[in-house]
Structure formats: C-alpha cells, structure tokens
C-alpha cells in the first residue's frame, strides 16, 4: 500500500528515521500510522471500502475529532460545516461503529451560541451518540467557558473549569482543561487545582490500568514559540509515570504529530476545518490556505483502539480526501 505507513512498536516508541518519514507523509497530506499495539494498519476509509468489520479482538474503539471551528469562513476553508459533516459521514460509514467520540476542542471559531447550535445540529447526524468534550480556547473566548460547561460538561459532572474522568472497558479516560486563565507570555496551563484533582483521581488505580488523557493544547512542548505546549504538563505526567500505558490525545495544532516517551504516547489530531503550518515553517501558526483540491487531504480524524493485554493503544489517523 502506498497511502499509509505503519509501524508496530510495543514499548520503545518510534525511531528517528521512522518519525521523519511519517512527518514527510503527514506534510504531504497523506495518511500515516504509528501503532503501539495491534490493528494499526487499517484506515477508516479502508474499513469502509472493504465493507468489513473491526477484528473481534478489539476490546474498545473510539474516535477523536477536533478543531471544527464552526463559524470560520475565511480563505483556508469557506465551508467548515461541510467538512465537519464529511468527517461524521466517515464515522457513520464504519461497519463497526466506534463506542464513542472524543472532541478535543475548538468546536467554534468565536464561541458564539449560534456556532455551537450549528455544531450540535450537524452532530445529530452522527450515529455514534456518546461524545465526550474538552474545550479549546476558541470555545471559551468571552465568558471563561461558562456556556461551554453548561452545554457539554454537565452530563459528565465536570469539576472546576471542566475536568473529569470516566472508565470504559477497563481504560481510564481523563479530560483536562488547559485553555483558561492563560498568563501573559505563557503557554497552555492546567493550574494547581486541576493538578491536585488529577493526582487524587489516579491514586487508587492499578499501574496496569491503561490511561487516556485528552486535552486541547498539546501536553508536550511541540513548539513553545507558537504557544504549542502546556507550561505545567510535566507535573501532570509525573502523576502518570507509574502507569504502563498512557495515551495523550490533543488537538489545537491542526496536524498529526506524535512522540513516544517511555510508556507515554503523545498524539495530535488533524482538524476538520483547516490545516495549520508545520512548526516554524510560516510567520505565524494561523490558518493555512492550500489549493482547494488538497484541503481535504489535510483534514481528518483519529481512530483509537485498545485490546486487552496489549500495553499500548493503536492510534490511526485518516484524512477526509
């Protein structure tokens, strides 16, 4: 196959050559895959095309969508509602639907109620009804996230600014908020209250519990010069060090990047709205205009699968072209 790269690493992460190769593919808008477990070699499109189903050994499969930016209508994508719909169509076309979705923030462009309404209306077309949210900075622009919490975080009984956790099939999921109370000159931020909650939240868990952390801004220093990182993420990761499998899913940077550090896999998802430049390759991280025929190859979603007994979760990205 020529349209994806697959690696299979149990523990030790990805080698430099492989990473650069993956980066190259991601840069040209094609699909790439880095897998820590099994089942990483099939994309959503392939599964849909083949009419097959996920292998029975998959214990849990969920999808990450991110950065819908409903309300954005500039050159980089004049119809973000349409591309969001296409992403949902892809999910609906999966013969074995995912158990649930995770949306990692920036539902809207400007936090307007009508933008949230449009998103919710379109989301109704998705056959998968269970959706877990964490806010992006675009969702909390003018009210500190009050509206967002009321609408998207009430059912999960979120604490503080909107953080929460839940369990699915033996996997412990943690939704974090790192887009509020940002400090001048700084990066994304979790804050003391949330970090203390996190420490207590994972205290009683066995080290063999697979952990999935999801938050908007990357929890690793992708490119601090553009604000692509979280100032106190090290402390959060310190609380997760003893776990055998930690998967960190982020959005915000509108492109796939991955890093493996020990037992922790960091992964960022594509946007469904518009791409952003690779770190440091443009004067600013603003929306990137590409030729119309390329756009959908730079938008996409992320499928994550967990198989009991395997240390790492398989993370598979697919674009919308």
């Amino acid at each position, binding site marked *: 196959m020529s349209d994806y790269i697959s690696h299979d690493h149990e523990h030790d992460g990805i080698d430099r050559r492989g990473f650069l190769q993956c980066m190259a593919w991601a840069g040209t808008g094609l699909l790439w895959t880095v897998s820590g477990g099994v089942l990483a070699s099939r994309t959503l499109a392939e599964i849909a095309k083949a009419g097959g189903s996920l292998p029975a050994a998959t214990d849990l499969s969920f999808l990450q969508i991110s950065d819908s930016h409903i309300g*954005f209508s500039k050159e*980089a994508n004049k119809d973000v509602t349409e591309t969001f719909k296409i992403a949902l169509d892809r999910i609906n076309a999966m013969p074995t639907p995912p158990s649930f979705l995770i949306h990692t923030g920036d539902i809207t462009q400007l936090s307007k109620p009508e933008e949230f309404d449009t998103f919710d209306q379109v989301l109704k077309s998705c056959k998968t009804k269970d959706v877990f949210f964490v806010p992006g900075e675009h969702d909390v622009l003018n009210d500190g996230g009050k509206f967002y919490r009321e609408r998207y975080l009430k059912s999960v009984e979120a604490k503080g600014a909107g953080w929460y956790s839940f369990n699915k099939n033996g996997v412990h999921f943690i939704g974090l908020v790192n887009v509020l109370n940002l400090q*001048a000159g700084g*990066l994304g931020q979790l804050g003391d209250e949330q970090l203390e909650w996190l420490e207590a939240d994972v205290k009683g868990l066995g080290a063999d519990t697979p952990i999935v952390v999801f938050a908007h801004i990357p929890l690793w220093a992708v490119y601090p010069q*553009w604000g692509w990182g979280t100032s106190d993420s090290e402390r959060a990761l310190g609380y997760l060090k003893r776990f055998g499998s930690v998967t960190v899913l982020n959005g915000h940077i509108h492109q796939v990047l991955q890093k493996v550090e020990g037992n922790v896999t960091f992964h960022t998802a594509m946007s469904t709205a518009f791409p952003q430049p690779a770190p440091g390759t443009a*004067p600013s991280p603003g929306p990137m205009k590409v030729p119309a025929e390329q756009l959908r190859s730079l938008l996409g979603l992320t499928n994550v699968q967990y198989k009991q007994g395997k240390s790492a979760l398989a993370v598979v990205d697919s674009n919308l072209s």
Partner: protein
Amino acid sequence: MAALLCGIAFLNLSLFALGGEMKNADSSKQNRIEIKDFAFNPKTLTVKSGEKITWINHDDEPHTVVSVEKQFKKSTALDTDQEFTVTAGAPGTYTYFCSVHPKMTGTIVVEK
C-alpha cells in the same frame, strides 16, 4: 485599582469613557496598533495621556487585548478587521497580552 487607561470602542461605532480623565485637546489623535501574524505592531507604543489607542486585527484568527495587571477593561475577542479602542489615562507603563495566544504581548507607555 482605578482604571488608568480608560474608554472603549468597538468597530469605531462608539467611544465612551469608563472613568478617569479625558483631555479634549488630544483625544482626536489616533494611535494604531496592528495585529498581524500573531503579533502586536508596534510592540511598544508611546502616547500622551488623553490620546486614543486603537488595535485592529488583520489575522484570520481572533485575538484579544488584555491588561496584564487588569489596569484597563479587556476587549472581547476581535474577529478579522475588528477594532478595539481605549483612551490613555494616567502616565505609566501598561503591559498587555492576547488571552487567546498569550505569547502575544505588548506595552503602552503613557506620558503626560
């Protein structure tokens, strides 16, 4: 703390003082700060007390203008081509940033 930079306007539709002093003689002078490529330009602007300062966003990304020490009222999120205006109050140095992209910082120096 008293509002030291005062006055606010959106899209040049209105200007209203939030308190503090306004000097009529200087208030018509416009000092502009362009927001482009995730930066305030000029990064440091020196004005006279009573003069207006207007930020305009040229990016396809919303930005805000927020006083680090909460010394003046913050803007709402400025979409592309939207403006935000304050009137300089008491002399001093005022640092501000974009609360959406906190790497973006700037300084206003208000002279007598």
